[in-house]
Every structure is written in structure tokens, then in C-alpha cells.
């Protein structure tokens, strides 16, 4: 099926997620859609699959204009999307999931469903136990189930969003074989959203590259990796000179750490951060860097390995224990994970201070908050509530609440959503902390920020941590290759 996207635009407030993107895709081919975080890949694919409407622009299937108001109508029109987290019902059996949304009668026809399922699974060499419960399946098997559902629903255009994250090498081969079969034998159109260059090179015929909401390049595959990396990340402006800084003793030591959640397992993490050092973690969202920060904060128990703080083993310490020992953690969602909507700035300060009396000295706390408001340039009053502040001021408030001295500061996206001025000010505050000897470990989606601000960098890619590179010696190309999963 031929797909034409014409001048698709989608704005979220001031953010231009899709800024006039036009793509032409022919049937019988596999297309790669590449781009770094926030480039607009997911937005574009959600528009094509009916999950959200565009602000303007047209979608043409076989040269006919179509309008999708839900994923169901998109599937009826022939477009199906396989999400990173499969849309299934874990407490149900495979066959129930298959029937869900397909058979709308009161009495379900299990016999026919089983026959259909059997037929499709054998055609694509899938191995699915129809009576297994979905929560007992691996992610790869759940993907297969979802694919079967989409194919049975009549999908001629299939969108796969990072399908190989979290599945085994064997399942990946099986998935790729079935994808080739779908294209070569049945003439379907496949779109692979990925950041793994090897997979794109291996599987795709053609690639589109998005950056900051715009289509910035397209190329036949195979092509040199360098070309793709350059299109994805662009050219970085020359780095501003930072004053050399004398690093102190090692503060954070991580040895042979293994962290895991339901989707991802990262093994063999070894790194150390010294007093006054800024250590950056790069990688696409969901590659394991956030889990590492949470493990350092004490919010995620590692499977194995050791985390030490100034030589002391703190692996088994709780979050609050580490907090008292001088570890601070600032999460990405400021108002969800850090500040309490409806609580005043003064109340936040009282909560965050290390020492408490039974009766709160409100006047003293308000005076202290007044002082910190001036020191941290917060636009707000001690009696303002945290949700009344702008994003930048919420970030300043979080910094104002940090205790001194601090041994280790862990940050997720410290400047996400901030304007240039607030970003610079945030880093000014962080540099002040490093002068005091705080070790800083941060993650960011902004590669430029990581290269510009860090002393050393580690890259996470699909659950693997790369070698550690020195920021002064690396280049955006090198990091781009590491993010793409190439050592």
C-alpha cells in the first residue's frame, strides 16, 4: 500500500513536534525512521496510526485522502502500529486478547478464532501458546501476539516502534524474518522506528531522518553509518572553554552493578564519580540510564553489584538513609516527583530541611525561604504554592531546597523544558555545587548539553553501558555511534 504524508504539522504549545513533514512511502519496502529524542518520530507515527490527529496536513493511502479518528479506524483503513509497550491485557489468555475488539457478539466464537490464530502464526513461523496467559509471555511473544492481531485486522501498513528493545536475539531474528516475508511476499509497507543503526542497515531499504520536527534527510540503505549519524545529530557548535577544575577523591563507586526492570536488564556497570566531577549519561529514553540514577538514589534495588559512597558500601541503604548521608536526587517530573502541588514554598523548605522540631518555627522558615528566594532568583513568594511557579522557577526551587554540604547530586534532565537563560542559570548553580566538592551524575536527552557540560560521559544503548569517554576528547559522531549501539 502506498502512503503519502503531506505537510504534517503538530504543535504542543510552543513545541513544534512535527513542523511540516512530507514523506512518500511505496508498498513492498521497509522504511527506517530515524532521529534523536524529541525529533518527532513518535508524534508522526501516532498521527499516521490514528492515535492523535494532526493540526494540519493530509494522509493519503493509495492516493486517497483519509482521516483517522482512532487507532481502530486506522486499522480498518489498513494502518496498524506495534507500540513499544504492547497494548494487551496481561490477565487474559492469548486467544482472549486476540478476540478483544474483534468479535463483538455476546457469545464469542472461540473455535473460529483458534483456527485463524493458528493459521497466521504458522504462516509467519511464530510460536504462540493460545492458552497461555499474557503475563506469562516474554516481551517478544507479546509482540508477536500484537502483530498477529494487527495482521488479522487487515493491516497493510505496519509501524514498529523500537521493536527490538527488550527482546532476545533469537526473537529478533524471528521478527526480522517475518518482517521480510510480509514485505517481499505480501507487498506490505513497513516502517521501522529505530535508533539502532545496525538494524536499520540490516533490514531497511530506505531511511528518513527527522530532527527537531523536520525531515532533514533521506537516503537509500545501505549507506555509510557516518552519513546517518551526521543527519541525525547535525553539527555541534564549538564547545565553550570551561575552566579546568581539580577533581577530588572518588565519591561514588559502582562495581559490577546489574539493574533490571520488567523490560530491560543492564549488566556490568562500572563507574566512579569524583568530588567536583560532572558525569553525563547519554542515550535514548529507556536505555537504562534513568534506572542507574534511581539505583544510585536508592529507589531501585540492584540485582547484584555494589554501590559505594566515599568508600562505604551503601547498596542496601534506603533512599532516606542515603538522603541523610548527603545524596540528593532531582527527578525529571518536577511537580510530580519532587514538589507537592498545593504546598507553599515555605512548607517545602520545612519538609526538606535535615533537622526538625516538633513545633514548626513558621516565622523562621519564612525568613529563611525569603533569603533563598533572593539567592536562587526564584520568582515567587514564600506563601506561593509550588504549582503557581513556572517550570524554570520550580527547578530553582528544587535547587533552593537542596541541603549543604552535598556529596552526590543525581539529576534527570536538569534543563528539560527550560529556556536558554534558565538553562545557563541551572548550570551556574551546578558548577557552584562542584566548587563545594559535590559529585554530579546527570542524564540528558540533549547531546550537546552532555558534551558541553560533562567531564566524562557514558552512553546507554538498549540496556548496555558503553565504555566511558572523556568529554574533551569525544565528538558528537562518536557518541552518535555509541547511541546507535556500535562500540
Amino acid at each position, binding site marked *: 500500500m502506498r502512503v503519502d504524508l503531506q505537510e504534517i504539522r503538530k504543535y504542543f504549545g510552543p513545541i513544534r513536534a512535527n513542523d511540516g513533514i512530507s514523506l512518500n512511502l511505496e508498498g513492498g519496502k521497509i522504511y527506517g525512521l530515524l532521529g534523536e529524542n524529541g525529533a518527532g518520530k513518535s508524534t508522526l507515527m501516532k498521527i499516521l496510526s490514528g492515535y492523535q490527529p494532526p493540526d494540519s496536513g493530509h494522509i493519503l493511502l493509495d492516493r486517497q485522502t483519509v482521516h483517522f479518528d482512532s487507532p481502530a479506524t486506522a486499522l480498518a483503513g489498513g494502518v496498524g502500529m506495534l507500540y513499544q509497550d504492547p497494548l494487551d491485557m496481561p490477565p487474559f489468555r492469548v486467544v482472549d486478547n486476540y478476540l478483544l475488539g474483534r468479535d463483538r457478539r455476546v457469545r464469542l466464537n472461540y473455535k473460529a478464532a483458534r483456527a485463524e490464530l493458528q493459521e497466521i502464526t504458522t504462516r509467519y513461523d511464530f510460536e504462540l501458546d493460545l492458552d497461555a496467559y499474557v503475563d506469562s509471555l516474554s516481551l517478544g511473544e507479546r509482540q508477536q501476539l500484537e502483530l498477529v492481531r494487527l495482521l488479522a485486522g487487515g493491516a497493510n501498513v505496519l509501524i514498529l516502534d523500537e521493536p527490538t528493545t527488550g527482546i532476545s536475539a533469537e526473537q529478533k531474528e524471528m521478527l526480522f524474518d517475518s518482517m521480510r516475508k510480509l514485505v517481499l511476499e505480501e507487498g506490505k509497507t513497513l516502517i521501522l522506528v529505530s535508533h539502532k543503526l545496525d538494524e536499520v542497515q540490516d533490514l531497511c531499504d530506505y531511511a528518513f531522518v527527522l530532527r527537531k520536527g523536520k525531515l532533514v534527510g533521506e537516503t537509500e540503505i545501505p549507506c555509510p553509518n557516518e552519513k546517518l549519524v551526521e543527519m541525525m545529530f547535525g553539527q555541534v557548535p564549538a564547545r565553550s572553554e570551561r575552566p579546568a577544575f581539580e577533581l577530588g577523591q572518588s565519591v561514588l563507586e559502582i562495581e559490577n552493578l546489574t539493574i533490571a526492570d520488567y523490560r530491560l536488564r543492564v549488566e556490568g556497570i562500572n563507574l566512579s564519580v569524583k568530588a567536583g566531577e560532572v558525569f553525563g549519561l547519554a542515550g535514548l529514553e529507556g536505555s537504562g540510564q534513568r534506572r542507574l540514577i534511581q539505583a544510585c538514589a536508592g529507589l531501585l534495588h540492584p540485582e547484584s553489584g555494589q554501590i559505594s559512597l566515599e568508600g562505604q558500601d551503601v547498596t542496601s541503604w534506603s533512599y532516606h538513609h542515603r538522603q541523610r548521608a548527603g545524596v540528593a536526587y532531582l527527578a525529571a517530573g518536577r511537580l510530580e*516527583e519532587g514538589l507537592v502541588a498545593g504546598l507553599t514554598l515555605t512548607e*517545602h523548605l520545612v519538609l526538606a530541611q535535615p533537622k526538625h522540631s516538633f513545633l514548626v518555627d513558621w516565622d523562621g522558615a519564612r525568613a529563611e525561604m525569603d533569603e533563598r528566594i533572593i539567592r536562587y532568583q526564584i520568582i515567587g513568594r514564600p506563601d506561593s504554592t509550588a504549582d503557581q511557579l513556572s517550570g524554570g522557577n520550580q527547578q530553582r526551587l528544587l535547587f533552593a531546597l537542596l541541603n549543604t554540604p552535598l556529596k552526590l547530586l543525581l539529576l534527570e534532565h536538569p534543563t528539560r523544558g527550560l529556556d536558554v537563560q534558565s538553562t545557563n542559570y541551572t548550570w551556574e548553580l551546578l558548577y557552584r555545587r562542584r566548587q563545594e566538592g559535590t559529585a554530579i551524575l546527570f542524564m540528558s536527552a540533549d547531546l550537546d548539553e552532555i558534551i558541553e557540560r560533562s567531564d566524562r560521559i557514558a552512553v546507554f544503548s538498549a540496556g548496555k553501558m558503553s565504555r566511558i569517554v572523556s568529554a574533551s576528547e569525544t565528538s558528537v559522531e562518536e557518541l552518535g555511534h555509541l547511541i546507535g549501539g556500535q562500540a
Partner: protein
Amino acid sequence: MNRIRALSWPQILQWLWPFVPAIAALLFTSVLLLIFDTTPAVAFEAIFDGALGDAAKRLSVMAFWVPLLLSSTGLIITFRAGLWNIGVEGQIILGAIAASWVALKLDAPGPLLIGVELILAMSAGALWAALVAVLKTRGRVHEIFGGLALNFLAIILTNYLISGPWQPPEGGTFRGTAPFQDKALLPLFENSRFSPLSLVLAFAALALVIIALRGTFWGLKLKALGKNTYSAYLLGVSSEREIILAMMFCGALAGLGGAVRTLSWFDSLRQSISGGIGFLALLVVMLANYNIYAVPVIALFFAAVRVGSIPLQLRTQLHSSLGGILTGVMVLFVLLFGDARKLGIGRGRPAEEKGAPEVSGSGLDPFSKEIVKGD
């Protein structure tokens, strides 16, 4: 130049808003009464008369008011911490059982006996509440379900005691234990069921809660927990400890309410010793919009309507549950209309200061979801 600004319509509406649900409830109940061929004015007058008609009735209202006030005051604490303490009913019953045990089994001079009764009642209520809290923090049972289950257990325990070990010697009626020794009962005001001592205790509890919420670090921690458990956890609040403490605090006051019930309203442990006062207290706090200063007034109003409905049947052939209907409908309308700003009348964001915890939100504790949000 001073100029008095004319009040705009939205401003006037906002001022009048609290009365809207009350009027709506009266209208709704009136329609119900008309359907059953009763003149609403007669029924409402009967309730008014039944509650405030003479001194004895007014004292009855006071006697009903005290345990309701105690439970509502306790609930302010749990609501502040974001907890739906439905189990308050069971906590009242356990308080009553503990007080009854002392009254039936121990012998001591009157004041000492009463002191022991009250302390044990508070402890029993607190422990019953702690059970709900631990079920929540350790067993991940939502406090609504844990509380409901323990309410039933408390009722079953009462029935067992009444019909079994604590059965009156003259033979088993299923209604209650034998009357307690006189010195075990709270000193009553003249010939009423109202104990002035209990009112003093209730106001002391009220003052204590006001101080706890306004002035103490503990109160601040509860407020933070109630609004955002996870952020509060990241800021250093140990949610498990505070949840258990908040529940026990409420349980203690509810237990005291149960003791007042059994030692002044009744003189023995009865089958329905609480009679739904815990649930009524939940309604009081909701109607007060979680504002502690409004709680005594609303509780008094509820007590008046409830006591006033008792003689309704004699006067109007209506069942005494009309009072329950009236109060219930009123709360329903308050919840329905919310505050005016939520409906877009007047400007500004909806008042979140005293809002009720969301049922789904309060089930998320940091310790029950160690793995936080997805990457």
C-alpha cells in the same frame, strides 16, 4: 479616591454557593415527601421540634453530637493524610467493646474506673485502625477495603460477646449486655444522656487536632503525604510511619467516641452500639469540605436532624429515616456541585487546599512501587 466596587454576579454566586446544595437537598426531600402525600412543612417542623422542642431534646442532641464530633475530628487527620478511613465505624465499636470490658469486669473507684475505660477504649480504637494501616502499607490492601472488612469483624465480635460470654445472667436476649455498674458510667447532666465531661474531651481533641495541623511538623508531613505521596517520599517523609500514626490517631478518637456512646448514650454494650456514627462522621467531614472549623457546626446540625427524626413517626406517619435521607442527600448535592469554581463560576483555580484525597491516588505508595515510572 475610595469607591465601592459593585459586586459582580459571579462574586455573589460564589458567596451564596455553600447554601445551594442545602437548598437543593431541601427541595429534593420536599418532592419526595409530596410523592408520599405529606406536607413538607409539617415534616420539617416535626424534625425541628423533635430536635429543639424542649430542654430534654436539646440535651439528647448534645449527647448524640459528642461521639460524632470525636469521630469527625479524627477523620480530619486521616483525610489530611490522603486516607479514606472507612474503618472508623469499626474503630468506634472496638472502643465501645474495650470500655464495656472494663465496666463489666473491673472494679475500682468511679473516677479511676472511668479513666481506665477511656484509655483502653482509645487504645483499642487505635489498634483496630493500626491494623488497617499495616494492611495497607505491608499487605497493599487499600484502606477502604481493609476498613470495611474490619467493620464487619467488629460487628460480629460485638454480637458474639452479647450472645455469648457477656450475656446477661437472666438469659440471652440478643440486644445487649446487662447494664453496667453505676459508677462505671460517665457522670450525666441531670436526667439526660449527655455527659459534660465527654464534651470537654471532644473540644480538647478538636484543639489538639487544630494545633497538630497548623503548628507541628507532623501535620505538615500529613499534608504533603495527602497531596503527593511520592513527592513527599522524595522530600524525606516516611510514608509508612505517618500513615500508621495518622490512622491510630483517628482510631483513638473514634474509640473514645465509642466509649462515650456505650457509657452515656447507652448503659451497656448494645448490638448496634455505633449505629452508623462513623459513616455519618465521614459525611460530616465531606459536607464541611474538610475544614476543621466547620466540623463542630455541621456535626451539630447532623445530630439535630438525626435526633429530631426519631419522633417523626408519631407526628407524621413517616419513618424516622427521613433525617438520614435529608443529610445523605445534602452530602450528595455538595459532592455533586463541588465548589463553585470547579463549575467555572467565578475565577481562579479550583480550591485544592482541603480537597478530598483521590481514591486511586492514595493507593500509590513509594514502598509499594519501588520501580517508579517507566524510563
